[in-house]
């Protein structure tokens, strides 16, 4: 039972990270109709930028987090100018294919700057952050790594921030209007291209943060991007249109991930996530919280 609880805890800890990355997918999709597969690469880019700032440049970790978020925001905004702006408004599959092209390009970029075959690690953080010692915290029989708590905390703060943003800010309202009906929103004077740019920027920020947390846990390689892709499973389990669904999907993926790696085998991790996703889609084709669209010919 202790093992089970421990696995559950670990699953929730990692699941919230997948949930955050999945929320990035959903925000971009809802605001702009782009099913952005390049989100996975943005996860890797976030991790690498953080590594670059932390290790070779030797900046303070707290500063690094803010700089990474700022850099990701800029990258997302740039991506909206090229390649997404010229194809905006075309069919969803065109946008999807553009994101595939972007994915290949960004992977090439990451490899050419940081090379493919090395695993890098962040330098130990306890020099700057004294509470950050490598020993796990113990609650009774359960143990939690401090890096997990850090990741969980960052993810939760980000989610709360976005929730407040979408709920209370004027731009958040515009966001919701666009995702409801982009044509009417446009006719009311909301700039679609600005919302798209903002959505991509926010998506990139979320992805980058996810990348930093995944990097803390697994080390930083190009293949962090594939871990980011596992968040796709979370998105589809939750349903493409639902932010709550994305978080819950992420938690499910995280728990499946940690349970299956323990009970079945080390290499099954993200494959188990995808198997669960297929099973869910067989039963509920629009995911757990997705909208079933009524279509007209």
């Amino acid at each position, binding site marked *: 039972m202790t093992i089970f609880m421990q696995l559950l805890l670990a699953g929730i800890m990692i699941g919230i990270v997948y949930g955050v990355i999945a929320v990035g997918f959903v925000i971009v999709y809802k605001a702009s109709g782009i099913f952005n597969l390049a989100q996975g690469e943005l996860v890797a880019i976030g991790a690498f930028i953080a590594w670059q700032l932390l290790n070779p440049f030797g900046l303070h970790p707290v500063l690094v987090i803010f700089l990474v978020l700022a850099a990701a925001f800029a990258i997302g905004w740039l991506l909206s100018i090229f*390649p997404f702006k010229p194809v905006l408004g075309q069919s969803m599959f065109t946008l999807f*294919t553009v994101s595939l092209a972007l994915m290949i390009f960004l992977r*090439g970029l990451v490899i*050419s*700057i940081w090379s493919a075959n090395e695993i890098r690690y962040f330098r130990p953080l306890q020099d700057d952050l004294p509470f950050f010692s490598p020993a796990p915290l113990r609650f009774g029989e359960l143990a939690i790594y401090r890096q997990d708590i850090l990741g969980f905390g960052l993810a939760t703060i980000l989610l709360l921030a976005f929730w407040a943003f979408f709920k209370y800010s004027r731009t958040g309202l515009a966001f919701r209007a666009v995702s409801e009906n982009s044509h009417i929103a446009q006719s009311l004077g909301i700039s679609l291209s600005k919302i798209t740019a903002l959505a991509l920027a926010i998506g990139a920020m979320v992805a980058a943060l996810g990348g930093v947390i995944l990097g803390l846990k697994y080390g930083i390689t190009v293949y962090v991007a594939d871990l980011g892709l596992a968040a*796709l499973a979370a998105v589809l389990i939750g349903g*493409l249109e639902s932010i709550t669904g994305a978080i819950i999907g992420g938690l499910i993926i995280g728990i499946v991930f940690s349970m299956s790696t323990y009970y079945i*085998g080390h290499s099954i991790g993200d494959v188990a996530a995808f198997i669960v996703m297929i099973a869910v889609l067989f039963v509920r084709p629009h995911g757990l919280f997705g909208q079933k669209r009524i*279509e007209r010919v």
Partner: protein
Amino acid sequence: MQLPAGTYNISYGKDMAVVRTKTQWGLLIVLLICLFTVVPLFANGFWLSICMSIAIGTITVHGLNIMFGYCGLPSLGHFGFMAIGAYATALLTSNYGLPFWLAIPCAGIAAAIVGGFFGLGALRIKGFYIAVTTLAAQFIIGYIIVTFPDITGGIKGIHLPTPKLGSIVFDTDKVFYFIPMVTAVLMTFFALNLSRSRVGRAFVAIRDNDIAAQAMGIRLFPYKMLAFCIGCFYAGIAGSLLAYQITHISAEAFTGGWALMESIWLLGTLVIGGMGSTVGPIFGVILVEGLRQFSTWAGPELSYAFPNMASSLQAAFSPLLFGIVLMLFLVFEPRGLAHRWWLLKTSYRLYPFST
């Protein structure tokens, strides 16, 4: 479609003919003669291998075209289905000693069955959901290949016996060349005719609007299943040929992030060539093979220019180049090279009155 001047359709058979005029017959025969005598006689090993890659790539992308271009079912796992074909061939030939002409279609059928299984949900799920399901299929196939090394050989892999037909041994590139090329020609012919048939028109109707198609009496499930199975059948055949070409298959070549990238390249190739046309895949594969060769040539050159990032630039140059080319195609010519070809043909036919 506009016909060349002076060509009239005086019977139904003429109207439906693929090859319409004597010039077209002549060009077709010249092309086939070139493919089957001139190329193997005069090409050296380098060009032969390029031609074989083009043939195999054409088959795969035709399959993807039938799924995505005609029926609107995107597949992000086509390389995974190729892996099924490759492993089916390797197991059938090395364990049961099947001859190659039997093993290749069997590989196609195996891939079609596996693809059909993942396509089972295709009636209920749509669009991106299918794309991610096939992506999942790819990861699951890769996992199975790695996890059961007793069957698949794992990292060590399986060695394929040399294909033989009677007294002909296909051991050198010059002789082996005929297998993928003949298959590619046949499969292209089949794809072309499929797109003109009842089934092909049903696919197009489903792609354009599946609810409207259903209202017109097209049963969605069998047709979507069929599209899935045919697409994966093509992938299986191509995988089988690929296995024969590289003669030794191992888990490394067919799993992980590498395989995903390969699948995305295939989809990109289709987009560059032009979706929903039979010449599209051929153009796309030729262009992308050209890009690949260019980047293997230019990668080292670049690493002389920027010596401090030499090794990484070599590996990264081809995805960078391909990504940019694909983006430019999507922005400036989303209908692909096939559309350009069509424009060229039309303006040639109307010359000197074309703009």
